[in-house]
């Protein structure tokens, strides 16, 4: 295996001002937040403009990067001395390499489309300006996350996107459920952040630096135990951000946020940060096979769990959220497979960014048409009413289930085949996951767009305005061709190689391998079963109780129940105990001491009778004693 290319110091050119990608949206957010109501009228336009400007800078940087030879494409732009500690010394810089620029393009590109879409989607919200401010803040933080040249900068962006996610999930603050979901997302993410922070601590104490370049070059000298510890700690961080088991529970609740948020943050970009982290730390996982194995196990477990959850949800956004979990599981699986998998992971990530964003926005379009209804049992037969949405959603749907030659087919099959070569058990589980994907996505698609209408009264579905449909169309183009463009001819693999290392042999793509055929067959079975149950047959308006398995899936595999039983209730109990202990124990001890002294002096006080004769008696006794003492002393 060939390691990644050397990192080159860079200044000048567009790359020299690549910090503009971060600063522009940050500026937008600052203006919109500080400007207050004055910016209400044009706030959304500024938001879009800043996002687009950031995209343009990213594209220019990309073009300039392509101008260098493949081995020269890892460039660092030093910005300023961020943290001159006693021993630690972190210089903030941006690392521009194929990996980070891929992300930057995805984030700013899809991000801009979603900004545009939001103009229409949030048109009637009085706080639209604030929404765009938060979106811009998110773009800036996410770019910092992927562009930073060190772990500390990544961490700053990491928590920054967490903040943006918190603000956007809880955007409709007046809804208690939204506020609770936002808080939950932040806290669960913080658990993951703890892991990331721990990983950074170990990295620093081991290598004496947190910059990617020196750390990766120092990895071969580190012991495997240390690397495993780092790998597992970073994985905990990745699990939090990417909603992988066991920190998955927040993602489904996060659907309380406005739909563009779900599309941008909780489908296309932020949740994939964990994959970025694992790929970025690739050499560490290469040096720590155990940690890598755990990554793949987490990936497979999550892809199955997410798929199962997706089968039972009636809420269209939650079903899509389950699917997101599942697809990120695929990426994690790929990322755990080493350099062979990295390209597939990132390619699937990009493809997923397109088709999932397309579907979420499509779902948003449907909700827009159906008075913000999310229950698919009240949809049905929308295909004729909303042609553009139907087609774009359909293309995304076909892409995700791996319909031949569409994006998902290339990227997901790549992952499955690589996993199969690596470890057949993982491979077959991934295949089963693909089958379930076929079922639940078809279920979603048929329930929404086909069958008989089950609309509520006073619902008059209509196509969304152009400002919303155009992004859908662009995204669906990406979801049709993206995967093929990247994977065919190992184009993306070659492109990424300088950043993540080149695998020993490039995978050759067999369109009709055994695995590929098995996958297609299983998917077909899933689609057919879904058609029978939800396309052709009548869909009951109220969810049937369902089997044990259905309930299990509907309850998110009891994830919340487990969290509640294991953490929340003991936590509440512990809190009450601690408060009680503090009041009665610690403070009680102090107050008890005070009461003891007070009581004693209260008793002693009684000696002061106020009778002057009593005092005189004591004086007289004292005088007598003095005389006595004088004799004793004098006679000695």
């Amino acid at each position, binding site marked *: 295996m060939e390691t990644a290319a050397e990192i080159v110091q860079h200044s000048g050119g567009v790359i020299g001002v690549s910090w503009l990608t971060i600063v522009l949206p940050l500026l937008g957010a600052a203006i919109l937040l500080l400007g207050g109501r004055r910016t209400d009228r044009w706030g959304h336009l500024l938001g879009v403009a800043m996002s687009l400007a950031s995209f343009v800078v990213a594209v220019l940087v990309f073009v300039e990067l392509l101008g260098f030879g493949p081995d020269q494409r890892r460039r660092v732009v030093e910005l300023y001395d961020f*943290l001159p*500690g*006693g*021993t630690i010394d972190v210089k903030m810089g941006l690392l521009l390499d194929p990996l980070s620029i891929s992300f930057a393009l995805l984030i700013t590109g899809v991000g801009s489309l979603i900004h545009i879409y939001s103009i229409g989607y949030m048109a009637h919200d009085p706080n639209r300006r604030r929404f765009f401010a938060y979106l811009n803040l998110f773009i800036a933080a996410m770019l910092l996350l992927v562009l930073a040249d060190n772990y500390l900068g990544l961490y700053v962006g990491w928590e920054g996107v967490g903040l943006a996610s918190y603000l956007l999930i809880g955007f409709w603050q007046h809804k208690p459920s939204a506020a609770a979901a936002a808080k939950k997302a932040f806290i669960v993410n913080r658990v993951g952040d703890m892991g990331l922070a721990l990983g950074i601590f170990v990295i620093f104490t081991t*290598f004496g*630096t947190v910059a990617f*370049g020196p750390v990766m070059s120092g990895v071969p000298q580190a012991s495997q135990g240390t690397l495993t510890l780092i790998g597992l700690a970073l994985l905990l961080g990745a699990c939090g951000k990417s909603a992988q088991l066991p920190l998955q529970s927040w993602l489904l609740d996060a659907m309380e946020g406005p739909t563009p948020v779900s599309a941008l943050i909780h489908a296309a970009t932020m949740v994939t940060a964990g994959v970025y982290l694992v790929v970025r730390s690739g050499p560490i996982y290469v040096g720590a096979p155990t940690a890598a194995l755990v990554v793949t196990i987490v990936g497979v477990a999550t892809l199955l769990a997410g798929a199962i959850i997706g089968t039972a949800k009636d809420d269209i956004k939650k079903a899509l959220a389950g699917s997101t979990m599942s697809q990120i599981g695929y990426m994690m699986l790929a990322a755990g497979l080493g350099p062979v998998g990295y390209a597939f992971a990132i390619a699937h990530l990009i493809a997923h960014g397109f088709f999932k964003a397309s579907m979420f926005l499509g779902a948003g379009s449907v909700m827009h048409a159906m008075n913000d209804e999310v229950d698919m049992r009240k949809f049905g037969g929308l295909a004729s009413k909303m042609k553009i949405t139907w087609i774009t959603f359909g293309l995304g749907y076909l892409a995700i289930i791996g319909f031949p030659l569409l994006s998902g087919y290339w990227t997901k099959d790549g992952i499955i085949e690589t996993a199969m070569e690596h470890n057949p058990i993982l491979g077959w589980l991934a295949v089963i996951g693909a089958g379930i994907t076929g079922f639940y996505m078809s279920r979603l698609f048929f329930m929404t767009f086909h069958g008989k209408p089950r609309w509520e009264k006073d619902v008059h579905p209509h196509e969304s305005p152009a400002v919303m449909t155009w992004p859908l169309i662009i995204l669906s183009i990406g979801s049709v061709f993206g995967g093929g463009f990247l994977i065919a001819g190992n184009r993306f693999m070659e492109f990424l190689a300088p950043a993540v290392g080149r695998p020993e042999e490039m995978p050759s793509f067999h369109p009709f391998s055994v695995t590929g055929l098995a996958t297609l067959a299983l998917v077909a079975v899933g689609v057919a079963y879904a058609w029978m149950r939800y396309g052709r047959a009548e869909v009951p308006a109220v969810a049937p109780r369902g089997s044990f398995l259905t309930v299990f899936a509907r309850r998110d595999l009891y994830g919340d129940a487990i969290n509640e039983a294991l953490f929340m209730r003991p936590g509440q109990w512990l809190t009450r105990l601690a408060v009680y202990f503090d009041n009665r124990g*610690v403070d009680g001890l102090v107050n008890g001491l005070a009461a003891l002294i007070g009581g004693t002096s209260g008793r002693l006080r009684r000696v002061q009778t106020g009778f002057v004769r009593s005092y005189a008696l004591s004086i007289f006794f004292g005088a007598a004693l003095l005389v006595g003492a004088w004799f004793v002393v004098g006679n000695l």
Partner: protein
Amino acid sequence: MPWLSILMGVPVVGALAVAAVPKGNDKLAKQLTLAVSLVVLALTLAMATQFDPSGARDQFSEVYSWIPSFGVHYAVAVDGIALVLIALAVVLVPIVVLASWHDADRPEAKRSVKTYFALILVLEAMMIGVFAATDIFLFYVFFEAMLIPMYFMIGSYGGAQRSYAAVKFLLYSLFGGLLMLVAVIALYVVADKGTFLQPELIGVIKDPATQKWLFLGFFIAFAVKAPLWPFHTWLPDAAAQAPAGAAVLLVGVLDKVGTYGMLRFCLELFPDAAKFFTPLVIALSVIGIVYGAIVAIGQTDMKRLIAYTSISHFGFITMGVFAMTADAGSGATLYMVNHGFSTGALFLLAGFLINRRGSQYIADYGGVQKVAPVLAGTFLVAGLSSLSLPGLSTFVSEFLVLIGTYERYIVPSIIALSGMVLAAVYILWMYQRMMTGPTAEKVKAFPDLNLREKVVVVPLLALLIGFGFFPKPLLDVINPAVQQTLTSVHVQPFTPAIPVTAEKKGAGQ
């Protein structure tokens, strides 16, 4: 130019002037106080520009004999640590003055309005003095004298339980202070140098047993002041009962004297004893971090909640001080400053909320965000700084403390990491209960922040954000001072396991 004496003198003169303002002219008293505090701030900034971080350790030094027969001096000087803490104090005072504009007007206040503002100025002089004193006796005098204005500020202008809180605060502090007095005298006698000057007493006490006893005398005083678990119970009462401005000065600056004292006196004067007691102190700090956070989660009163979060944060600071690594030391010092800004902002905003609603109970609020978005937004930013969100300066300090502690003590550092999660729980849960959801009936008429309140909050938030992205100015001042402190403690500097060579590091960057 005797900078430090001028810094102390101006507020004292100002306090006398404010006290001399004729009765019934409260507004003049307030304006005068604000003007004086701004003058002090300007003077401090002027002094800071003359400070040379790479120069001698003690700068702007002044030494005059005070009580020659005991070798007591009026000796003041600042190093980087003292400088930033003095800066913290003088920045907070004008903000507090402005924030407390109407706090002393309430009918239940026992003393006149101008007295409150004169007390603030007196306190300011003492805060500067306590950080600047290099004579241990002088330090002790300021250390104890600071209690007096604070006692009156809590006891005369506080909430319903103010007498209880003020007496508790005073007794706790006196208890610690008297132990320290014994240690101060013992140090003078044992050292037998005929002087109380701190620089001349470094490294004088050699006997380990003596060191331990003297260390304990100083340490308990500072632990009560800081406050370290389990000496903390006075803080929630005092902070909850004090008017918001006094609470800011109490938690933001006064308590820092404890952690500053640990760094300056416990570590430097008794290095061996400090090393001996380090496991104990680290254990107490970690308990404080987790315990303070958990108890904070369970609070129903927001001022008490903020006070408990401070106990958790003070755990971080003491842990950083006693980890005795350069990173942790710098982080702890920076933490003292940042915590002042962060908790200051939180207390002041809580004060604004309480002024509007007349209740400190979280349950009495709900949906404030809808009616007062600026108030809610600033409250959120202040809260986020309390949970050390990156991009806010508290993150830098917490990160440095944790990573510096990890360099030497792995397990405590990992346990302390859980404080991060707990911080998110207590802050966001409070925010959720108070600011989001349906708007409570009594909250509906809330006005948003007015201009005065904005002027109070904005500088604090600006400092938090500014130093969050660019902490270099502070760290450049702090780092050399911390290094010198650690040198006098004789600890091995930390070296990474696999140091990446400088050449590679340079190339990598």
